[in-house]
């Protein structure tokens, strides 16, 4: 267990002593702020417009549906692009600089390396997602969104981010080239994002399978405020499966 923390701690420090952490955080928060600002502005205009109409049902016009839900959707797309760039270094860089040899001649299990590197990535996205809670705070301070919906939505975003990290680590473990790692994980993540697109025209079983595999479908359930074990299990298993694949990829590279 100690080794897991040793490895995680080094990776975390590496991100924070380089400009990477600050560039990524700034960019992410800039985009998130832009989304939030515009969604809120749009919401205000809508409220002003519809409040003049007597007898019009405006229950659909609320902070949760008009601001939080689209904000979280947008953030999950931003993460989809940012996370591969964060995780592309994790294994690929060590392989190309030769520190891989240090890691794999130390008395450390492959599982500990995989967990350590995942933990480091998880810490960083915790910070990213944690900082976006500011927007939830602003809404709670000035408005009255439903707290349950906020919690399940942000929890969903966090789970999405964690599974992205696992996928990114896997892609990085496949190669010594960071660009290949980033592109590979971007492709896998995008595929998981849009995999349910053909579901509408497909047969019952295919539809069920495609929808189950889709990140979007599970995430949107959580944004709607439903914390279903099915979705939790999905994100947990996605993460675990990709960590397992990372383990296999790292092991198999040594045997070649």
């Amino acid at each position, binding site marked *: 267990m100690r080794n897991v923390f040793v490895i995680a701690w*080094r990776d975390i420090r590496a991100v924070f002593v380089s400009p990477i952490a600050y560039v990524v955080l700034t960019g992410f928060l800039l985009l998130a702020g832009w989304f939030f600002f515009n969604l809120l502005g749009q919401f205000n205009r809508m409220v002003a417009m519809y409040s003049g109409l007597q007898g019009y049902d405006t229950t659909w016009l609320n902070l949760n549906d008009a601001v939080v839900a689209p904000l979280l959707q947008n953030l999950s797309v931003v993460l989809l692009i940012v996370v591969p760039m964060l995780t592309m270094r994790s294994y690929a860089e060590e392989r190309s600089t030769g520190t891989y040899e240090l890691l794999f001649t130390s008395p450390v299990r492959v599982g500990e390396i995989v967990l350590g590197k995942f933990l480091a990535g998880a810490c960083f996205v915790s910070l990213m997602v944690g900082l976006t809670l500011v927007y939830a705070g602003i809404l709670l301070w000035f408005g009255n969104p439903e707290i349950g919906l906020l919690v399940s939505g942000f929890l969903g975003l966090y789970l999405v981010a964690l599974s992205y990290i696992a996928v990114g680590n896997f892609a990085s473990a496949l190669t010594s080239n960071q660009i290949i790692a980033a592109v590979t994980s971007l492709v896998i993540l995008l595929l998981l994002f849009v995999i349910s697109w053909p579901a509408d025209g497909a047969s019952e079983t295919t539809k069920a399978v495609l929808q189950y595999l889709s990140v979007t479908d599970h995430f949107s359930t959580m944004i709607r405020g439903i914390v279903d074990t099915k979705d939790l299990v999905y994100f947990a298993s996605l993460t675990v499966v990709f960590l397992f694949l990372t383990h296999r990829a790292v092991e198999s590279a040594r045997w070649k």
Partner: protein
Amino acid sequence: MWLQKTQFFVRAFGRGRNLTASMIEVRNLSKAYGGFHAARNVSFSVATGQACGFLGPNGAGKTTTMRVITGYMPATSGSVSVEGFDVFEDSFEVRRRIGYLPETPPLYLEMRVTSYLSHVAALRGVPRSRIPEARDRVIAECGLEQVSTRLCGHLSKGYRQRVGLAQALIHDPAVLILDEPTIGLDPAQIIDIRQLIRRLATERTVVLSTHILPEVAQICQKVVIISAGRVVVEKDLTEITRAGSLEDEYLKHVSGDVPADAEAADA
């Protein structure tokens, strides 16, 4: 505490540990990458406390053999044991006993020398309370006092090599595996590193790969020459120098791009 001791006992003396006089035993080691055989049936042994020069032209299989000894990658066939522990079966026992300096020193360039060495110490299983002590010891041993607060990425090649050596020594291993430790250094740095290695070799078993012949003559007691993946010579240095020169012995057994290597040896 008691349990730990017993476990240590079982580890050290149970489980088919094969105690022999030699520290490192390489038996019929072969390694193939796809269809390419980097090492074929390599066998040699290094006695405890001995410094062994591992010679051969570029691409002869030196690095491959060393990577197998250190447990970085498994052999296709054959076995390696270090202090009686099999590299494959008891990989962690072997790893704890080996300090390894790969061809490119495995430095994290964004770390300071002290924090890098502390990190390696933790990775190598040095107890947390003893890390500062171990770190200061290797800093003194490798002459890194002046650069200890600098970033690894800002160091000269010679100092990077020293940090690489310090990293290999941090857990006070009985065996040192050094893969071409003087490659790419300027003459003054080469002399420096050689002296350092000679000092380290007095109390440790050392395997040193190189294609610079005088280096071996200065540091080692034993010579293993490998060519095209096969061991062609395994002799004590005195045995070779009695019969002729190390250079003659080398040239006799190694073909291919020999002239270039011989020139390098003269340089």
